[in-house]
């Protein structure tokens, strides 16, 4: 048809223009209030822009007028499906600032809770990602297991979603007596359940067609986009904060980091599934070696860190979660800056989507694993 139209001197045979489609902020699969502006040629994406900020609460600014202890709950509400991990980042950042040594038992419990949270976050990701691609049943299965983790959290922390687990200097309480057996029970059922998901997805022809070769990011580009977390490792880059700069008690445990090869959606899926298994291994080791002792360090009631600045980062479920704190010697931070992995990973969406179809955009939003609470802060 192109030859024909060039022969007649017309640009196109018909009047054709690209269609602009607003996906979101209210859309079933943009994982919150993300607005994606798509420029479509038929169903092929030729342009894409993300509009964010619908959930902006100004957490970084609020932090400047709150004391260090008061800021912690705001962190629960950043990545609200992985509140415990967020807490760990901030609390350890402040501990670094005031130079407090956290008791060993508290560190181990922190690792257990954070890794449970990583499993919960990955399960939620798995469910929603599979649902975006059309496999609804996986969502319900994943929620069944996530529910167990949330129950463990609820009995310890009192909250299920925005679990405010840690305090500056350790834990507020020691865990309840049955905690260990309940976590072990959960770890016992988990491998069988993971097998169930993998039976549904791993070798499923449709699943493979929808994920293999979709949104390929070569390692170099992933680094250039400053991707972190499973997105980076799926492209074959060996980087995990738990190994690169061990924090908390992670240097005590043996675990492996799954690395993908092709950098496509399927590799990122495999990486996350393997991470769940590795997290379970870490929890088991931490439970085995759980020391006795206090769970709270001696921390002054009124925190006045010395003037200075500190950057601390952890490996959150979604990538490198960092906090940059500047203290001017008063009880409130002079500036708090969050490094939100979702926000930074989200910029890879444009790079990955162009040339794919609308259906793939949905799958790609899923594979980046964003939470808008964290993107917009």
């Amino acid at each position, binding site marked *: 048809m192109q030859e024909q139209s060039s022969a007649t001197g017309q640009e196109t045979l018909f009047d054709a223009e690209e269609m602009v489609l607003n996906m979101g902020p209210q859309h079933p699969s943009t994982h919150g209030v993300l607005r994606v502006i798509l420029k479509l040629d038929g169903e092929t994406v030729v342009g894409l822009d993300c509009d964010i900020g619908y959930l902006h609460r100004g957490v970084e600014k609020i932090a400047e007028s709150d004391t260090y202890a008061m800021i912690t709950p705001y962190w629960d509400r950043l990545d609200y499906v992985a509140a415990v991990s967020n807490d760990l980042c901030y609390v350890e950042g402040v501990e670094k600032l005031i130079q407090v040594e956290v008791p060993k038992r508290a560190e181990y419990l922190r690792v257990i809770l954070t890794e449970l949270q990583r499993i919960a976050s990955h399960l939620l990701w798995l469910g929603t990602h599979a649902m975006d691609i059309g496999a*609804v049943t996986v969502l319900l299965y994943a929620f069944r297991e996530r529910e167990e983790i949330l129950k463990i959290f609820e009995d310890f922390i009192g909250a299920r979603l925005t679990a405010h687990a840690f305090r500056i200097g350790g834990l507020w309480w020691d865990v309840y007596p049955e905690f260990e057996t309940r976590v072990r029970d959960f770890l016992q059922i988990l491998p069988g359940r993971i097998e169930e998901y993998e039976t549904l997805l791993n070798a499923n022809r449709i699943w*493979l067609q*929808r994920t293999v070769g979709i949104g390929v990011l070569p390692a170099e580009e992933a680094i250039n986009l400053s991707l972190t977390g499973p997105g980076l490792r799926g492209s074959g880059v060996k980087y995990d904060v738990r190994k690169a700069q061990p924090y908390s008690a992670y240097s005590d445990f043996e675990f492996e*980091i799954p690395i993908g090869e092709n950098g496509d959606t399927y590799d990122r899926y495999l990486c996350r599934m393997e991470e769940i298994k590795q997290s379970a291994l870490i929890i088991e080791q931490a439970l085995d070696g759980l020391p006795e002792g206090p769970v709270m360090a001696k921390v002054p009631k009124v925190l006045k860190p010395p003037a200075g600045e500190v950057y601390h980062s952890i490996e959150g479920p979604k990538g490198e979660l960092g906090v940059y704190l500047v203290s001017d010697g008063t009880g409130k931070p002079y500036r708090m800056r969050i490094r939100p992995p979702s926000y930074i990973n989200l910029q890879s969406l444009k790079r990955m989507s162009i040339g794919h179809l609308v259906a793939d955009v949905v799958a790609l939003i899923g594979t980046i694993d964003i939470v808008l609470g964290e993107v917009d802060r």
Partner: protein
Amino acid sequence: MQGILATLMFVAPDWVVSLTRERRPNAFWAEYVLWPVIQILIVLFVILTLVAYLVYLERKVSAFIQARLGPMRVGPWGLLQPAADGLKLLLKEDIIPLKADRVVFALAPIISVVAALVVLAVIPWGAAWATIANINIGLLFILAVSSVGVLGLVLAGWASNSKYSLLGALRSSAQMVSYEIGLGLSIIGALMFARTLSMSGIVEAQQADHVWYVFFQPLGFLVYLISALGETNRAPFDLPEAESELVAGYHTEYSGFRWALFFMAEYSSMIVTAAIAVTLFLGGWMLPGVTGTSLFGIGPIQNSTLHTFASVAVFGLKVMLLIYAYMWFRWTWPRYRYDQLMELGWKWLIPAGLANIVLTGIFYVLALPPARGGVFDLMREVSGRLVPTGKGVGYFILTGTAITVPLVWLLLVNINRRSRDFNLHDQRQLQVNLRRERLEKALQPQPSDGGTQ
């Protein structure tokens, strides 16, 4: 009480039927007006109730697959849920978007639902009088009318004046048009054996041949089932309404009872496609053991009405089994992408359907009696129809399987070699390629004294 019930069930139909048989002055009215109206009312009532309960069944089946309970609140086991849903939909505000084309917007769901319901007329629900119209082009009629149904979706998408609806309509028109070809091709093999387009005729042909055509035509049945999924927009081909991409596709802007009409159309076309599959491939109302004179060896039974009821039950059972399979697929598999769906339709189903026709035709001609140009002489003429002999049945089953296995294999291999998307062999290899790295730890843990100055 029981007496009244028995009278209603067994005697009343006989009485109505007898009206048509005896040459009374009102025989014309009885045959062409009274009896069809009764049949239509019964079928409509049963099918519409069934549609409501299919929604309930879908929710229950999905719930059991997903380790849930499903609707439990309205009535025992949630059995009154369909009634509550219907009432809710009737009472909802009827919203027509401001910028919609009002006439077309209102017309679209009606076209859909009418096209889906009209074809119920020619489906042979059971033996004897359990068919509304036994016309000699039954199958063609069904194919023709059900392709009108796609108009409803296209018009709905266009009239809504919404981009999501438009995309849904585009997808559904392309999908239904291309899957209709596969559907049409898949049934021709079975028609060669039946040698009639009348739906009742097809069932009777299978009765005469003493075999269900699924055994003669495994490939045709396979292609039919997949195409029927695509034709009814069921998962994994539910792209026109893919809720994670297009919100709700062509019916995004519809609400209340107009939306319910689309839903009814979808579920009744599910029943229709399942009913065609049963008629064409699974022997219709036939079941070994259910005959005109005995039920599973109990008998002899002289009451032909009882036999009709039994045959309707058999037919319903087969249809429900297929529908259960549809639901099972829906809640197990992810969704195809638009281009992959087209590829499956055009590169897989249509070539398979064509090859099936050609090969079945060759084997059929070979089996004819020598007088008719055949070689093997495996068919006899019984009352004007060619019926395979005992050996012939074995021959056709054998050739049917012989067509299916290598053809499916060939197509899979061919597709896997040609297409990047379908390269299943390479895709499976990927799992092995994921490697678990034991990263070396950094020399120093993060310094706990930080960067404090």
